[in-house]
Structures are given as C-alpha cells and as structure tokens.
C-alpha cells in the first residue's frame, strides 16, 4: 500500500485507522506517508475509504512481501493458496474436529497466535517459538500456512527469505499428548522472555464421554490459569466418509 503524495493533503484522517501505526505524518512536507517496513499490508486504510482525496493506492506485491498481505488481510486469507500453498491464516483446527478427527482422545492441540493481540510480529519471532517447541518433539500441523513456510518441519526453521516479513499475526499449530502439557507450557514461558512480540496461547482437547475435560483437569492440577470463555465444538458435524453415521450429539441422544 502507498499514499499518492500528489493527492495527499495531510489531513491525518487516515492515521488512527492503521492497526500497526504505520502511517506517519511528515511535518516538513505536510503529507502522510506509509512506513513500508512497519506496514503489514492489511489494507485496512484502503478498505476504510476514509481518505477524502482517495490517495491510497494498492501496489503489486512481489515475493516475499506478499506474505504480509496473505497473513494480515482476512479477504486475502480466503484465497491464499498461491503464496503458502494452503488457504487461511490457520486451519480448521478444532472447528471441524467432529468431522476430521484431527484431535483424538489423549491429544492436546495448541494454537500459538504470534503477534496477537494487535502488536504484530516479524516471522522470525514465530520461528524462535517454533524452534523451541520442536525440541520437545511435537507434531506441527502440516496444513498450517506457517508450517508450509518451514524449511525444516522437524526443527521449526523458516525459509530465510520470509523471516524478516512483518505480519499482523500468524499461528503456530501443533499437537502432542496431554501428559506433555506442563513441558509445553515451560517452554512457552521460557521463550516468552526471548521474543520481541506477544503471543496468545490456545489449548484444545476432546471432551470425554462423561463430560470431563482432560485439559481443564491438567491445567488445574499444575495451577495454570485459563480464561472463563473459549470455544466449543458442539458435535453437529458429520464425517464425510461415513455419511450414514449420525453426528456425535444425535448418536448421544439415541443412546440416552
């Protein structure tokens, strides 16, 4: 994204809209400019249509700068297969677990939203976290766009050409067994002191048939706090290969 300087009148109306504060005012020229290094190409400024002179202009993004747009703009996310090979900033993760069976009983899934909330990150910060996590032997989600950018999926190392790219957020997804939960949290606490950004941690598991939640019990046992709100897949999806099998909840009702 760029601001056409011949059109800009320096009214500063656009400045508060930028989520990463990349729009700067140049007092000597009385114009607004975009700090290209800071900009994550989310196109919020362009979509907001607030410039009275329509000075915002889209520019053709080449490789690897296109990565910024791919991870930062939800509109682009839907068509991002070209850049990362995979659609989306993350995957369907637990959202379709009743259909895909991605997380089985005994699994603990993790989603690490690097740069979130609202701080943004360079991909090299995400690499630091992924490499630290990889040392305890986890399984990175192969369909995740960030996994796709890894040159070595065993170590979590990213391709050199994308490391300096800055995005609004990106997600590291992996799964391990529930008994490794304390170990994962130790690693995350340690790496938190080494990164120059923030990251939000999500933890996923299947609910037992008796209604107990293994992750919840494990977190309470080791004294790790969690938010009172979160996400619940209510089991209405039907596995694609087994169309005749009724969904998790309807089966439950029949048995009841």
């Amino acid at each position: 994204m760029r601001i056409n300087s011949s059109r800009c009148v320096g009214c500063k109306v656009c400045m508060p809209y930028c989520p990463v504060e990349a729009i700067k005012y140049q007092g000597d020229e009385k114009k607004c400019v975009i700090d290209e290094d800071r900009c994550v190409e989310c196109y919020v400024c362009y979509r907001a249509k607030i410039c009275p002179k329509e000075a915002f202009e889209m520019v053709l993004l080449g490789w690897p700068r296109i990565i910024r747009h791919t991870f930062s703009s939800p509109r682009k996310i839907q068509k991002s297969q070209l850049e990362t090979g995979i659609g989306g900033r993350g995957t369907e993760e637990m959202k379709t677990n009743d259909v895909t069976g991605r997380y089985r009983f005994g699994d603990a899934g993790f989603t690490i939203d690097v740069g979130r909330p609202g701080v943004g990150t360079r991909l090299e910060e995400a690499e630091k976290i992924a490499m630290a996590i990889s040392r305890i032997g986890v399984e990175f989600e192969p369909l995740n766009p960030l996994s796709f950018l890894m040159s070595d999926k065993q170590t979590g190392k990213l391709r050199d050409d994308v490391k300096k790219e800055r995005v609004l957020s990106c997600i590291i997804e992996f799964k391990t067994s529930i008994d490794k939960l304390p170990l994962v949290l130790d690693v995350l606490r340690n790496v938190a002191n080494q990164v120059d950004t923030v990251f939000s941690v999500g933890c996923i598991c299947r609910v037992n048939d008796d209604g107990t939640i293994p992750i919840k019990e494990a977190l309470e046992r080791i004294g790790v706090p969690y938010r009172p709100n979160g996400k619940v897949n209510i089991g209405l999806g039907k596995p694609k290969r087994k169309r005749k099998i009724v969904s998790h909840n309807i089966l439950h009702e029949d048995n009841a």
Partner: protein
Amino acid sequence: MTHTLHRCGSIESLSNDLLVQIVTSQQIEGSITPRKKPLSSSIKRAAGQLIDKYFDRFPNMRIKIEKILFELPLGPRFLKKYKNMIIRLVARALRVFNTESEFVTFLGQLKKIDLGSSVVVSGLFQQVDECLKKINLRPHTVQFSLGVFGRVDRLPEEKMLEITTMCGHHLISPRLVKKLVKDVKADRITPERAAELLGKQCICGAFNKARATKLIEAYSMYDET
C-alpha cells in the same frame, strides 16, 4: 483460525457475547489433505459471495428468509439436501448473539435441520454448557485460552483490549477506538455510531456491536484524555 477465542472482558460483559460459527470442513476424516475443490464448490462460493453482497445491503431480508427456511417442514429426504444447501448459502457463517434465549433458539434450529456441517460456539464455558443442556447437546471438543505471553508491556490497556479483541483479526486499531471515544465524549457522535464505525473494520463479522456500544459508553465516562 482462532479469531473468537481470545476475547477479553469481565464475566458480566462476556455473558452478553455469544457467537455461533457454521464451518463446512474442506477435509475428509482421517486425512490430512484437503478435498479437491470441484467446480461446483467454486460456483457455490461465487453464489455465496453474491448473496452476501445482496444481504449486506438488505440485512433484514436475510433474517426473514432464514426464518422461512428454518420453519419449513423437513419434507422428503431428497429435498433436504437442496434445502440444506440453500441454508448454507444464506445463513451467515459467523453470528453474534447478545441474549442467551436467541442463542439457544438458533442452536436448536441448527440441530433440527441437521446441516451436517460443524458448529462452533464461543462464550463463557459455564453459560455455553447450560445453554447446550437446554437443547440436549453436549460439547465435542473445547479450546481454552491460556492468555498472552511475551512483551505484554506493549499491549494497550485492558479496557481497550475488551473492544479490540472482538475483531479476531485485530483490524481495529486502538488509536481509532481512542479517537471515537473522544468523539463520543465531546458529543460529536453517539456510542452506537462509534460501535458501527468500529464494526466496519471487522470483515469477518465477529465484532459485537451491542457489547461495543456499552463498552464505549463506559469508556467515554472513564477516559480522562
């Protein structure tokens, strides 16, 4: 896609913030490769985009059509497939509810029509549990938020995060919230209008405008800047 997981706020405020998302999987069970997208799915997506554009202009029409579709009798099995296909196109993939009763009613309707797509809800675990029990459903998989790690000194204040975390992709800038709060304080705009302007930045529709209105109102009274 964890955009409705890390919403901040007090229990009281979050109790009026319930979300429902309908997700049709692109994968098949036990496989890590996505399904090949046939031409028909591209056509469906294009049709969905056209329908979305239409309903963006006439939002009340979506509610009316949905109501008709949900209340249609189940009919013969071969018709159910087409009915569900239309519902998937018309029903918004991500919905925000401010009241428990509307939330329960909508989930009940989804259960009744048996779309076959996955349904994910976000909200307070205890409240969601109680709502699910009312319609005889139970959780299949859960996701907890363990909070924020790293350079938390860079985060805006908690009151600001209550508003900005409602946009899961964080397209709402804290500076914009501050500006609008100032405008509300100076009586230049109403809290409702401020919430609407913020909501426009959130493309995926996860932003709860009614909750934001209340938060902006409270924030404008608290803010000293």
